[in-house]
């Protein structure tokens, strides 16, 4: 039975382990005198100490429960979905009862409203004048911010990088805060990041100079934006801090394909002012032979919309954010999720040298490029003791030519990867950031 979530996916929805614990007991038919589903929703009445109406739209990953818990999804929702994962036979296909239909109507109405708004946005000419005024005001602020940044950078080089030794985070944060005021949040973020670079141990001078060079280049590029090609212009604008409106994006033509999920990375954004979970989902299109990345956010304690795992797939249309190397996308439209059996269509590099050459090609066009998704065939994960750099131990991926890449320090499953490979060459999908490789999936 495809289309339903697996137990693991359901558990991934839960925001904390207590919900998981409490929901486990509820995943039992005896608590559910009424259960049902149609092509859109799954519902049930949970009869515990109280009676609750639980409904879930699997496709839209939208849930609702009449219980008073502030957690969404609550234990009743998770419990019902766990039961569904293990025993779909308990959920007969039937007409939705009134309370479900009502909720569904509401959902549809909301979606329609959103679509309407979108249509209006495209139909109704916006107050161009007002918009232009707003943009001009922001441009002015940014321009002033860039002048200030330039002075700060010049002063830093004049005093020398050694002058930053012993300086507190305030030194960096003050400049970053000014850039936030100047509405250049992207640049602010890069400046804030410098504090960590400056205290990153041996070789910090080189890393700091490299980052300063990048910031300088970005600021200068923005000042000369018109000279850049269109895609790169969009990159530079977004790196400075301009947001691309998703509504606008949805109006443009997307890319229709059969998309394979390669995996996801969930991390806390350390540089965000408020704790936030960031989910990067990597996709690969069968016909277009292109990668795409979905970026989702969830504020602290809230669940991510959906958990993705390697091998899932859907047919659909993605809208890409404009870029010199478009990767980030949003889903305009898609079919139900299914499981892909054959992923021989995946693009793969035959060795490390080929993968690195591909990376070099991209940074020529796009110097600030962050992470390149790639599949490298026939590499062996290894553990080295007494690594030449003086680190006590080190994990690498080595190919048959003897080339090797260090594994990312973020990656915690080094030994599992080695156990899985058994010293045999394996094919790995992951991200290369110019310094280290972060494995995301092992292709069987």
């Amino acid at each position, binding site marked *: 039975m495809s289309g339903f979530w697996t*137990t*693991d996916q359901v558990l991934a929805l839960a925001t904390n*382990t207590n919900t*998981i*614990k409490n929901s*486990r*007991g509820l995943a*039992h038919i*005896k608590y559910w005198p009424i259960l049902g589903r149609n092509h859109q929703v799954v519902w049930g009445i949970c009869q515990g*100490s109280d009676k609750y109406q639980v409904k879930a739209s699997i496709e839209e990953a939208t849930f609702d429960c009449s219980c008073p818990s502030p957690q969404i999804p609550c234990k009743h929702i998770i419990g019902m979905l766990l039961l569904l994962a293990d025993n779909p036979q308990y959920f007969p296909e039937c007409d939705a009862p009134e309370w479900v239909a009502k909720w569904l109507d509401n959902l549809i109405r909301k979606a329609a409203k959103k679509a309407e708004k979108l249509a209006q946005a495209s139909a109704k000419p916006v107050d161009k004048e007002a918009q232009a005024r707003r943009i001009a005001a922001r441009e002015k602020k940014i321009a002033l911010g860039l002048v200030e940044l330039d002075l700060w*950078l*010049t002063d830093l*080089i*004049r*005093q*020398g*990088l*050694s*002058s930053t030794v012993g300086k507190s985070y305030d030194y960096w944060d003050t400049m970053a805060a000014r850039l936030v005021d100047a509405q250049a949040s992207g640049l602010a973020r890069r400046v804030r990041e410098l504090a960590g670079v400056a205290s990153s141990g041996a070789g910090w*001078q*080189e890393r700091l*100079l*490299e980052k*300063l*060079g*990048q910031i*300088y*280049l970005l600021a*200068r590029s923005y000042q000369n934006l018109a000279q850049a090609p269109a895609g790169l212009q969009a990159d530079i604008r977004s790196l400075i801090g301009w947001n691309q409106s998703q509504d606008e994006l949805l109006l443009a033509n997307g890319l229709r394909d059969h998309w394979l999920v390669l995996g996801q990375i969930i991390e806390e954004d350390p540089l965000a002012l408020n704790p936030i979970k960031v989910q990067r989902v990597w996709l690969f299109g069968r016909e277009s032979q292109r990668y795409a990345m979905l970026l989702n956010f969830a504020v602290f304690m809230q669940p991510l919309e959906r958990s993705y795992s390697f091998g899932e797939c859907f047919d659909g249309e993605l809208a890409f954010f404009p870029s010199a190397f478009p990767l980030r996308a949003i889903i305009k439209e898609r079919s139900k999720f299914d499981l892909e059996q054959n992923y021989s269509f995946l693009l793969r590099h035959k060795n*490390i*040298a080929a993968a*690195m050459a591909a990376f*070099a090609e991209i*940074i*020529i066009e796009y*110097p600030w490029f962050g992470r390149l998704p790639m599949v490298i065939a026939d590499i*062996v994960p*290894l*553990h080295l*003791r007494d690594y030449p750099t003086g680190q006590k131990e080190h994990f690498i991926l*080595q190919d*048959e*030519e*003897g*080339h*090797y*890449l260090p594994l990312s320090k973020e990656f915690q499953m080094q*030994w*599992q990867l*080695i*156990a*899985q490979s*058994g*010293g*045999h*060459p394996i094919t790995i999908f992951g991200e290369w950031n*110019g310094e280290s490789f972060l494995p995301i999936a092992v292709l069987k």
Partner: protein
Amino acid sequence: MDEWQKLISNSVIGTSRQQFQLSRLTSTLHNAQLKQFLQGLEKLDGEHQILAAAAALSLYQKIGHSPAQTNEPLPIPCADDELPVCNQKVANYFARIQGEYIQLLPQFLAAIRLANKAAPYQILPDLLTLGQKNIHLREDIIAILGTRGRWLAKLNSDWQYINEYYLAIDINNLTLWQTGNRNERIAFLKQLRSQDAQQARELLISGWSQETPEDRVKFVELFKEQLSMDDEPFLESLLDDKRKEVRRIATDLLAQLPESRFQQRMRARVLPLISLKVEKKKSVLELKLPAECDKEMLRDGIEAKKAQGKMGEKTWWLLQMISLLPPATIAQALNISVTELLTIIKQSEWKEMLINAWLMASERYYDEEWLEAMLYHELSVPKIIQLIKPERAEAVLIDQLLNVQERIPANLIDILKVHTHNWSERLSLLFLNCLRTHIEIPSMVSHIDGHVRNALKVFGLVMPPELYIKADQNRPLNAQTWSLWQSVVDELVSLLQFRYELLKEINA
């Protein structure tokens, strides 16, 4: 790249102290485009020249960067597994055991071992780390590592204990015994002991005087296996060893050899102190205390000073001596059955001391008749249930449950709790029945209910997992206090069901 290094050093010092000269970079550059770009910076001030050059050079390096290369060939990969490897779902269950059901870990390992399979590859690192910290889990972990796990263990120094275990031991090659490290020598002697007990003993004796006290302890412990009267002269000599731990192990082993000189001495000390006399037509046990703890007694491991408690010193000596004899020794000497002896001591002031001594003796020396007699008299039942064979324990518990009239008495829960062998279906169903009745009959004494509820967590580990359906149907929904029981019954059902599905997957 030299130019990059020059740029770094200038920017570290700062232009206020060292003027930046663009020509220092461009003069040595080979790449014409890069050179041209840098020369184009002439119009800028020194600070901006550095910033722009930093952007250009670091990018130039990144683009031209070729991955590091080594001449080291790839290591030889791991051979194929001999055992069938458990599937991915078993790995998922393992993750849940670590998160929610850690008490099931020993069962999980044993079940894979029993199925004669190897653990799924992904969980091998976690298993190896668990074995490093938990010695009691090692044997099962080692059994399910498979070829892949043993291969993996060699790569991480934290997991070396596995390699020592797998040391190929050739008992005909004495080099390992003569030159090996402590663990290797223990492994060698253990192997030899299991194949040729006599040769192992003679080998050990030949170099005994040179062994360190710590090693002696480890070596003597190995004599538990294949213990016989042939070991007696050596063990007897160890009573004079300098190390207390060595002497303690020796007395422990000698106590298991009824014909040993040690046992004879103990009998000679204890039996004259005990006699029967008839008072008012009833047999009464007469007991004299030893007058002193002499040197010979000290040599035989009797501790003169008592740690704590209100027992007198002399009683303490006697207790220790009785505990070193097989539990039925006194009854035999008095020419009565153990049951009779237990009847006689029921009123005796020495009852507590004697029973304690015999319980200690029972851990060294298994005597079914004595254990049965204890059960017959309902003495120290929880302890006896632990000592006696599991089938017998089952029978006793079934009997007791059959006699439960209404609510389950607290002491029966205590006994059930120590029966940690897998319960039979009959015992489990009987218990579930009693539990239902127990819940249905409300009581003012609610602390017993708390006791029962706690115990359910333990029972769920040993009941046959396939009973989860019956356990689930066993819900007195109309009972007054049902709401207090619902969640623990849910937990019991979930635990059983989890175990059921886990086993199904392991044996798939």
